[in-house]
């Protein structure tokens, strides 16, 4: 299929990458999933513009991305509210819009959250590498030449007819994830929760932790009360697998949340954040405060079924719209 110029990048902003839902099946050779940190938002964005849920879109961070439409395009912006404007006017998020050639899209800065997603009907056309279009920054492959967008880049899309039937479609307001200022993140304890004292685990579950500036797509470092370790265990363990949402506690006793670009680690993991709360994690920015709330795997699975059920209902009703 042919490709068409969709957007010119006037300013790349703080950090903007091409991401789909990730690259799976290669952890065994050291390749992490990458992909959208807030997969829920990317999936909804894709549905709003008539794409498959897993199509590649843009993930943009904090502020500053400026794009110029080079042709007619159906788009939707989801995720964190980075004050998106179209030709200077505030653009409504969580709904699809028709852009015409010459339109200017601007992300002016954080109003809420940290990462926004731009979905485009036809997707962002980049080569699929190892089964995914996601950018893996430290590995320098995937997405647009394995790097973040830069000024002067041209983004291409597949040459398919514009789907006018989706324009103006909205995602129901009551289904949009809310990110409160002091978000409780639900976790499942383990696999090394027994490396900490009872008091240590109590500290972990009852304290507020602050997101530091040492945070990126690999992980989020937190500042707060030190989590006490048992005196008869070592600080590090033999390296083993990590997954997004795993919470490592290094020697300094301060937890760090693992995100999408690491495969193995040698620090103890006190708990793992549940799948449905990973979208909240993606919206954390330096200065935000979090706390952790242990729940059971069964409860987590119920929450997941609820979320997936709602998304499926939306998908079905939207497709027949």
């Amino acid at each position, binding site marked *: 299929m042919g490709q068409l110029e969709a957007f010119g990048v006037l300013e790349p902003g703080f950090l903007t990458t091409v991401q789909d839902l990730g690259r799976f*099946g*290669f952890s065994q*050779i*050291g390749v992490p999933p990458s992909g959208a940190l807030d997969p829920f938002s990317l999936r909804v964005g894709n549905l709003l513009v008539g794409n498959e849920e897993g199509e590649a879109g843009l993930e943009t961070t904090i502020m500053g991305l400026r794009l110029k439409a080079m042709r007619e395009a159906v788009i939707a912006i989801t995720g964190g509210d980075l004050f998106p404007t179209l030709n200077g006017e505030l653009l409504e998020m969580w709904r699809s819009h028709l852009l015409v050639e010459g339109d200017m899209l601007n992300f002016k800065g954080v109003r809420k959250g940290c990462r926004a997603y731009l979905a485009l009907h036809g997707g962002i056309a980049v080569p699929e590498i190892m089964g995914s279009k996601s950018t893996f920054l430290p590995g320098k492959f995937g997405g647009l030449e394995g790097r973040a967008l830069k000024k002067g880049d041209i983004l291409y899309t597949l040459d398919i007819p514009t789907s006018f039937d989706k324009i103006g479609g909205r995602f129901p307001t009551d289904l949009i994830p809310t990110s409160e200022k002091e978000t409780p993140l639900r976790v*499942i304890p383990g696999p090394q929760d027994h490396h900490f004292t009872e008091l240590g685990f109590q500290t972990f579950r009852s304290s507020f932790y602050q997101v530091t500036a040492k945070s990126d797509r690999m992980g989020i470092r937190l500042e707060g009360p030190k989590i006490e370790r048992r005196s008869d265990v070592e600080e590090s363990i*033999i390296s083993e697998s990590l997954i997004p949402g795993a919470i490592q506690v290094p020697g300094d006793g301060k937890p760090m949340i693992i995100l999408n670009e690491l495969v*193995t680690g040698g620090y103890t993991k006190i708990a793992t954040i549940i799948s449905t709360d990973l979208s909240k994690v993606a919206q954390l920015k330096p200065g935000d405060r979090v706390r952790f709330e242990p729940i059971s795997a069964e409860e987590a699975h119920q929450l997941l079924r609820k979320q*997936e059920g709602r998304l499926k209902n939306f998908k079905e009703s939207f497709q027949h719209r």
Partner: protein
Amino acid sequence: MGDRGLLLEFGDEISREINEKVRRMALASQSEAIKGVLETVPTYRSLLVLYDPMVLSIKDLKKRLESIEERLQQSSFPKPKLTRIPVVYGGNYGPDLEFVAEYHLSTPEEIIRLHGSRSYLIYLIGFMPGFPYMGELPEGLVTPRLKTPRLSVPAGSVAIAQKQTGIYPMESPGGWQILGRTPVKMFDPMRDPPAYLQMGDKVQFFPIHEREFEEWVN
């Protein structure tokens, strides 16, 4: 581990026996192709089974894995493949060779000979794409990490730390002692398979001359 992962632990140390058990279990579960299992990730001493809770319940998954484990000894297991890897030792290619020799009150020649004197098992590919963790080094090579890690280690660097040896597939920061460099490309996302080496296989190093390095690259 979380609501999508089940971590199976097989011991608490780095050993060939434990690592082989992990790999046996990984292969057996992969060949079983359980519906709802997305990926199985073996490491030194544990196996992470990633599953889709919308398709497979944790209870059913545990049952299936237990039954696989019971039949583990009868499961087929491939013999390790030996790969010989050329290395230019010392000089700009191996900036820590002299230090390692001094540390062991030895000579660079002896360190090179020792490093190539046996084959190493690949315990794990991790940390970055295609990075093999291999062991065990002979006693006379066991060396601590650098006190201050380097900000940049060139791709292909062959290095040691404690009892292990490894190869940096791409340029990155790193704290291992660099003995030399191989012209063999350890990882290429456009190649199939992307990683040159596989967990469970064996590697033996052999020295080549600087001139040959360029020939290998071309």
